């Protein structure tokens, strides 16, 4: 059955604040997983203005270089992905965990449930992590992920993307998102990308090619800044 995603700005609601809705029927998996009861507004308390500091254990030296985690180098177009993590006030989110995962250059994940008949790359785990620095900056070296097919609708393909997981300063600021590449021809038929109804907000998921980050004779650079909801704690008001 062919289910072409429809629309232009249908479903655009100012209260979504640039976020996707839970129910977006073109993305078929939302139909049985989106809650239907109205959400209850949580008052601001310590339970959500606090949050995990690092989220997880120690970071290895090569965790942010996905091209050097195995015996040899992975195949594909080597890229550098860097940017800043900012809070809702535009302040840098420092010393905060950034986790990424992605398909290899052929569009295949290492995951055992990925059945796409594209080759696995023994030199590519597709997983990385790092901490942001004092300016909120992170940096990964990896290969450009390939597009891959999925079964959402007939001839459905996901645009190339890297998954990002961020904690930020508080439980409120937790975010999992996907970073896309500029000019991808698959945006227009991808219901996950298009679930963000606000066109300007969509642009905030697309990295920009950055010549300054690009290293001559080595790797193309892409820049992707991430803005989290909520605010960092008042800086050092009550040091422990």
């Amino acid at each position: 059955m062919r289910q072409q995603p429809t629309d232009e700005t249908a479903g655009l609601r100012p209260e979504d604040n640039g976020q996707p809705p839970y129910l977006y029927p073109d993305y078929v998996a939302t139909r049985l997983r989106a809650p239907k009861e109205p959400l209850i507004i949580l008052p601001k308390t310590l339970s959500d203005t606090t949050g995990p500091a690092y989220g997880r254990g120690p970071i290895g030296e090569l965790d942010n270089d996905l091209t050097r985690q195995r015996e040899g180098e992975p195949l594909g177009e080597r890229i550098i992905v860097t940017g800043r993590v900012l809070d809702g006030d535009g302040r840098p989110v420092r010393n905060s965990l950034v986790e990424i995962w992605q398909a290899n250059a052929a569009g295949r994940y290492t995951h055992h449930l990925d059945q796409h008949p594209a080759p696995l790359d023994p030199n590519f785990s597709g997983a990385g992590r790092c901490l942001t620095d004092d300016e909120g900056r992170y940096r990964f070296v990896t290969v450009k992920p390939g597009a891959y097919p999925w079964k959402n609708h007939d001839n459905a393909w996901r645009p190339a993307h890297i998954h990002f997981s961020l904690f930020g300063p508080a439980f409120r600021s937790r975010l999992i998102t996907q970073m896309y590449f500029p000019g991808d021809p698959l945006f227009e038929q991808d219901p996950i990308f298009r679930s963000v109804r606000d066109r300007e907000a969509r642009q905030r998921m697309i990295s920009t090619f950055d010549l300054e980050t690009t290293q001559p004779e080595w790797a193309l650079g892409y820049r992707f800044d991430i803005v989290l909801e909520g605010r960092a704690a008042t800086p050092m008001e009550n040091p422990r």
Partner: protein
Amino acid sequence: MSPEPTPSQTIGPFFHDALLDRNYSELVSPDHPEAIVIRGTIYDGAGEVVPDAMVEIWQANRTGRYDHPTDDRDDLPSDEEFSGFGRSGTDVGGEFSFLTVKPGPVPGPDGQLQAPHVTVSVFARGLLKRLVTRIYFPDEEAANAVDPVLSTIEDPELRRTLIARDEGDALRFDIHLQGDGQTAFFAF
């Protein structure tokens, strides 16, 4: 001018190697004298289990203190060993599980106290944004009755979805994403 937030996107089905490469579901060691198990099954709107979700929890320690600089109540002991953060995938049966301790009460709005609770994020394929909920404890009837968050929920059925069930060896907190008995979810 404040920058606009980056939109959320689904975690998708392929996160396990990156996010669950180790066991992050034990917040305390199994021989901790006050260790409790909290487990539950996630169901979709058709009543099918959700085997590809990830659940994260965030909670205070036994005395009600959060391991975070914003919690400056220095009279309460902080606990070096206890970060208050856990992460569990769901298995083929849709079940997640944590080993933790029961948190103490924490401050709420207007100087009220909140009943002991664990804050929960649910991520899954088909969820374009995380779902946020809370686990409350069945042996805290008095505190639950006056909890400032629970009491904003008028529907008693919906309120009940937030209280774990005592199964003897564990507390059970099933999560229904949609349909009859849907769990109460929060927004900020």
